[in-house]
């Protein structure tokens, strides 16, 4: 294992630096992500959710519409058949009505009334034929009270010339709350009567219960605005959409009630003060085409926001996971890069030290060598000079002079080497400290001096 070039302090500083380099942009990115998630994504998701709720309510209204359409179309078909078949024979008509009622598959109907008028050739109005089905038993009776002709189940289809539904009403006959639909009967262009089919509110509520989806509460409003079905039975027939708005002190609901009066559309509205007593509620609404009723689906805001919150939480969890992974990777990369950088610098410093030490060793060596050379050289020069003053032959003296000259030259050469070595060390030392280049003039001067001395040597 190679010894680390970075010490603990440097490592701490490096990590801090990496943390700032990676953490700061990632933090900003995370804040932007959260903002984006809550505003853009949140709004988008809420819009999607409310659209889903509206679509769901439209679907439920469509289901209910199917029930209503089935009730009216079956009644219209069978009643018209009966009326046409026995238009001139009251006894046959009675029999057919009874049979029709027995065979009619309107399982939800508790009562069906047939009434006819103006059937006599002499223009006299015949008594109304009123058929009552109660507990599976059908009874027919003639009704001579003119007021039956002005009850909604008769009057509305008569005047509108089409199938019409009444507002909910209390029937003293059956002792229950009902709504009825009436179908006008014609032979050719001649109006002959109305077939009416009354359904108890309880049965309507059961159908509504079948189409309900958990988490929402359905309220059914007649086209006049009266409450037909409500989670709280006490409100049925008692309240209208306006009075419910007043009870809840909800401006939004009041506006909705007035809007629906003019234009029956589907949509969703958020109530600050809810109908069902929750602080805030969403009310999705959709019309029922057959009878212009309106189905309201009331969902507490908490229930609407729960999936949205879950979705946002999921997004934030995803974001956190991605963010942490990104942080780890970036931190690793940045740390590695910083560490490499720092190592290079440390290595360069060490190389410089090594080079300096190397030069210093050479100089020391040269100094030592010079010293070691000089000592014997001094002896040689000294002894040669002494020997000249001794009684020697001229030839020998000549030789001694030669030795003396050579030794002196060698001494100067060694001195020059020492000076060169000293200057080189000084240059290296200076460059390592200040990186100032060794003056070229001095370098050349030393080099020349040394070269001269070397040339002078034999």
């Amino acid at each position, binding site marked *: 294992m190679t010894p680390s070039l970075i010490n603990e302090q440097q490592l701490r500083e490096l990590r801090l630096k990496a943390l700032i380099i990676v953490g700061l942009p990632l933090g900003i990115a995370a804040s932007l992500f959260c903002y984006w998630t809550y505003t853009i994504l949140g709004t988008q998701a809420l819009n999607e959710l409310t659209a889903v709720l509206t679509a769901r309510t439209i679907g439920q209204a469509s289901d209910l519409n199917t029930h209503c359409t089935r009730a009216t179309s079956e009644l219209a078909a069978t009643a018209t058949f009966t009326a046409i078949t026995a238009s001139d024979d009251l006894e046959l008509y009675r029999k057919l009505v009874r049979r029709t009622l027995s065979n009619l598959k309107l399982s939800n109907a508790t009562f069906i009334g047939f009434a006819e008028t103006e059937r006599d050739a002499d223009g006299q109005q015949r008594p109304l034929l009123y058929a009552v089905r109660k507990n599976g038993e059908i009874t027919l009776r003639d009704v001579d009270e003119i*007021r039956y002709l*002005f*009850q*909604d189940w008769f*009057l*509305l289809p008569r*005047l*509108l010339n089409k199938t*019409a539904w*009444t*507002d909910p*009403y*209390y029937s003293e006959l059956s002792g229950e709350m009902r709504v009825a639909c009436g179908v006008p009967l014609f032979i050719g262009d001649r109006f002959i009567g109305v077939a009416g089919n009354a359904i108890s509110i309880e049965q309507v509520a059961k159908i509504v219960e079948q189409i309900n989806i958990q988490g929402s509460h359905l309220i059914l409003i007649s*086209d*006049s*605005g*009266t409450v037909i079905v409500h989670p709280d039975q006490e*409100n*049925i*027939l*008692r*309240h*209208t*959409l*306006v*009075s419910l708005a*007043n*009870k809840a002190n909800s401006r939004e609901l009041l506006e909705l*009630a*007035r809007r*629906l*009066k003019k234009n029956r559309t589907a949509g969703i509205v958020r109530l600050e003060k809810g109908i069902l007593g929750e602080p805030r509620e969403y009310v999705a609404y959709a019309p029922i085409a057959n009878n212009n009723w309106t189905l309201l689906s009331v969902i507490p805001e908490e229930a609407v926001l729960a999936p949205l919150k879950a979705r946002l939480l999921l997004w934030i969890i995803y974001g956190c996971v991605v963010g942490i992974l990104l942080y780890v990777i970036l931190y690793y990369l940045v740390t590695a890069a910083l560490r490499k950088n720092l190592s290079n610098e440390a290595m360069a410093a060490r190389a410089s030290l090594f080079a300096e030490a190397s030069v210093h060793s050479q100089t020391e060596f040269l100094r030592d060598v010079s010293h070691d050379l000089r000592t014997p050289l001094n002896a040689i020069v000294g002894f040669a000079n002494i020997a000249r003053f001794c009684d020697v032959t001229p030839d020998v003296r000549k030789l001694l002079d030669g030795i003396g000259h050579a030794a002196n030259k060698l001494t100067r050469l060694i001195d020059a080497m020492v000076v060169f070595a000293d200057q080189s060390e000084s240059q290296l030392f200076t460059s390592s400290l200040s990186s100032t280049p060794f003056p070229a003039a001095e370098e050349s001067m030393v080099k020349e001096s040394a070269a001269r001395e070397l040339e002078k040597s034999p």
Partner: protein
Amino acid sequence: MRTLIIIATLLFCVSVAFSVSAAESALPKSAPPVRILMQWVPQSQFAGYIMAVEKKLFAKHGVENVQIEFSRVADVPMTKLTNGDCEYATGWLATAIQRRAEGLPIINVAQFHRRSAAMIVAHKSHGIEKPADLSGKVILSWGGDFDVEMTLFFRKYQITPKAVLPFLSSLAPFLKGVVDAVQVVEYNEYCRLIELGMEEQDMAVFHFEEHGIGAVGDGLYATEERSREHPDQVRAIRLAVTEGWEYAFRNQQETVDTVMKYSAKHGERTNPFHQQQMLDTIKKLMEFDSNQDYHQFGVLRYQDFAHAKLLLQRSGYNVDSITYENFYIP
């Protein structure tokens, strides 16, 4: 020992029986009931009477055992009054004058409404802006006692409707636009129309009162005999009901809650919003002002009587014999 126990038991039973019968004889005989029959089902129209009972105002004025009763559709309060089925009954002024002229011995003991509540409401979208526009239109009408004002209204503006159909309490034909107009009373059906989402600016409203043919509405009636034999009771009842109305207008929330309780007990399906609206309208019709002279409240004004009589005469009723003095007990 056993004999002793039997004797003691018998003695005890005898003493208990004696003490119970003694207590019964010591109690004062309960006063005969004083029944006041309202002309319709429980609603804010009768809040003054309801609050007078609830706040024991009848007892305060010395009339014990007052019971208020409510009518069903088929009931005719004035007939029940003269048949002795009730001691007092409420009713409209014009109706009461008619009944009196027909021979029913009834007399006005208090007149609380000072304006007529009857009106015709029409769809502006059907081209109806002024009374004459009602010609050629289909109108729902209650008929009966309501006919007096409407007939005069038609005559005044020469209105010939296409048809006048009987109004059987359902507003659906009007709401669906099957009929063009409907005759209503302001405190009930008109409030109901608002409650059903109709907006005031979409309706053409003709108050008979504003066209000079309104007869004042609710008053309290008794038989002549009762007014003669129990004048103090009549005055006490009038005072108690007056205070009842004052209490009702000053404590509207409590009044509406109480009316709702009566309504529920009677099996009626209504809501507090409707009753509050009705109470507000009744206050307007009674021209109730808390600063007014207390003793003027509940008085049948001569001009109101004379106007109602005149309207009846114009409608062809023979009410000449009925005078203010023999019709009203101040």
